[in-house]
């Protein structure tokens, strides 16, 4: 199954602010969000205390700026693109003031709730699994999905080979090298990835099929941007050290939340936090290449 990440937007709020098309660059996103922010309505809904979202933003912006974070045996979190990504992500709150200040305590579900009540223009980092909630909310029929921006902050065109619209997300099936039942395992994989089974799963859980034929047979127009995001998804670096790296990326946000709430993330404090995560991630990568 695949769960590509997209953003949802409130058609009425965008139209009221005179915005014709959802943003395709992060800079444009902030500009549009500013226009929509007034009287208790915010341009963007996102949760800074979510256990996953923060690192996905940083990863995506960094990849789009041409830094996929891992280069061979080197972890590149100390790259300026990463700091820029944090500054952009935190900046929505501290500089642009386009997110609800309470979102320092939100997880993704709080952000979905804010968007569902019609109080936000964009809902970031969401998937098709938000459809059941949104269809029963005030914004039913008033929202659409769109690709998240693919142009890195401060840039005017994509610097990455692929668009990296979303992190490649979904479920993986692995057959161990030392398995004694490889044939059976492969037969199982063939079964669960068949068109029929994948469509059946989609009906029940809302996740998009990983089977291309099955994906093409879905006709709901709402799912189109999701299918496109699935195509433009990129995987996180394939290394055993990724767990630590992800934890480090997330931890920078966790430890910055008090500053965020105070309205200003100090540049040198941010650098120190990035440096610490860089060191831990590199140490973990060293162990991975040794093992």
């Amino acid at each position, binding site marked *: 199954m695949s769960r590509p990440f997209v953003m949802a937007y409130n058609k009425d709020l965008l139209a009221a602010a005179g915005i014709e098309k959802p943003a395709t660059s992060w800079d444009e996103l902030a500009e549009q969000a500013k226009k929509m922010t007034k009287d208790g309505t915010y341009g963007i809904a996102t949760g800074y205390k979510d256990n996953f979202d923060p690192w996905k933003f940083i990863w995506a912006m960094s990849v789009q700026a041409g830094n996929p974070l891992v280069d061979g045996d080197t972890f590149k979190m100390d790259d300026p693109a990463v700091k820029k990504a944090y500054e952009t992500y935190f900046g929505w709150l501290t500089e642009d003031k386009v997110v609800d200040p309470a979102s*320092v305590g939100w997880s993704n579900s709080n952000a979905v709730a804010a968007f569902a009540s019609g109080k936000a223009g964009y809902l970031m980092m969401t998937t098709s699994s938000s459809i059941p909630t949104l269809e029963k909310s005030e914004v039913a029929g008033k929202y659409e999905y769109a690709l998240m921006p693919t142009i890195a902050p401060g840039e005017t065109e994509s610097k990455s080979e692929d668009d990296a619209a979303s992190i490649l997300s979904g479920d993986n099936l692995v057959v161990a090298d030392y398995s004694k039942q490889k044939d059976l395992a492969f037969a199982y994989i063939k079964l669960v990835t068949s068109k029929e089974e994948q469509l059946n799963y989609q009906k029940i859980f809302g996740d998009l099929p990983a089977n291309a034929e099955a994906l093409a047979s879905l006709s709901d127009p709402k799912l189109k941007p999701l299918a496109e995001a699935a195509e433009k998804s990129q995987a996180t670096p394939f290394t055993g050290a990724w767990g630590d790296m992800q*934890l480090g990326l997330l931890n920078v946000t966790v430890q910055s939340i008090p500053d965020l709430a105070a309205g200003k993330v100090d540049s040198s404090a941010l650098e120190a936090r990035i440096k610490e995560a860089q060191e831990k991630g590199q140490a973990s990568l060293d162990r*991975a290449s040794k093992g």
Partner: protein
Amino acid sequence: MSTDASNEIRLAAESAASRAAETAADVPGQEPGNQSSPRRKGLSERDRPLWMLIPGGFLMIIIIVVPLVLGIYMSALDLDQYTLRKWISSPFIGVENFVEAVTASPLLNAVWLSVSYSLIAMVVTLPLGIAAAVATQNAFKGRAVIRSVFLIPYVLPSFVVATVWRTMFQPEGIIDRALGTFGIDAGLWLNGPQSFWTLVLVQIWASWPFIYLLALSGLQAVDHEVHEASALDGALWWNKLRYVVFPYLKGPLALAFLIGMLHHINNFTLPFVLFGVPAPADVEVLPILTYVTSFQSFRFGLSAAMAFISLVLIAIPLFIYLRAVKLDDAESPGAKK
């Protein structure tokens, strides 16, 4: 984890209560009991059917001893996601994990946070529990209801307590709004330096009834005659409390203190549910650190070393506790009860 701890506490509460009852029964007829007990002890010891302990002992070995030994052995292995397949035949690296845990991980800071938070929570809950026990000692209308209400925080699962408090502590949540009506802006509860005090506060809320329970059992042990005697001597309430009642509470409360400390140091559910992972640096307590090392970084060997260090840390108060209750010579006449 939490079930274990609460079982342990319940056991302790029961034993404290039964010892209190024993004390009560012993005091009036102390002399005859003392004289006859050594002889009886000799007789019963000879014919004890010790083989009946085999099933229990077998279970203890499987459930406690084997995992303990395995855990200690794991702490000497380079066991991580890359070597997990080989498990106990992973490379043996001696004390390297311990060295890394102490020198290159936030372990010492975590120990400091765990111990200080436990101690603060304990010191605050003691007077609260005693006050509650004293207040409900004398019969009044509705006492049974009040006593039941007092136990609510104690019977709620940690997970529920933490979830509810987390919701209340949200930025612009109910607590912020309540304080806002008095013009107080308290700042963040769940992140930053204040999160430490949030943890202490919630722990206090959740655990004072335990002190209350044990203090209550201590109060039950105070004889009616003692109350009468002190009343005859003209002792007023404070003197009576200070010199007559409190000495009775010393045993149960020392017990409560130790078990409470153990429970707080071991408490994983509360900080995990309140703050999530990765935890803010101010509440990265020992169990959280061990958990993250194991299940986020997949360094099982290192985390086993951390767990072993926390076991040693806990063994210190545990040792004192075992000495205090004197499980080994409960039958001997002079044992402190």
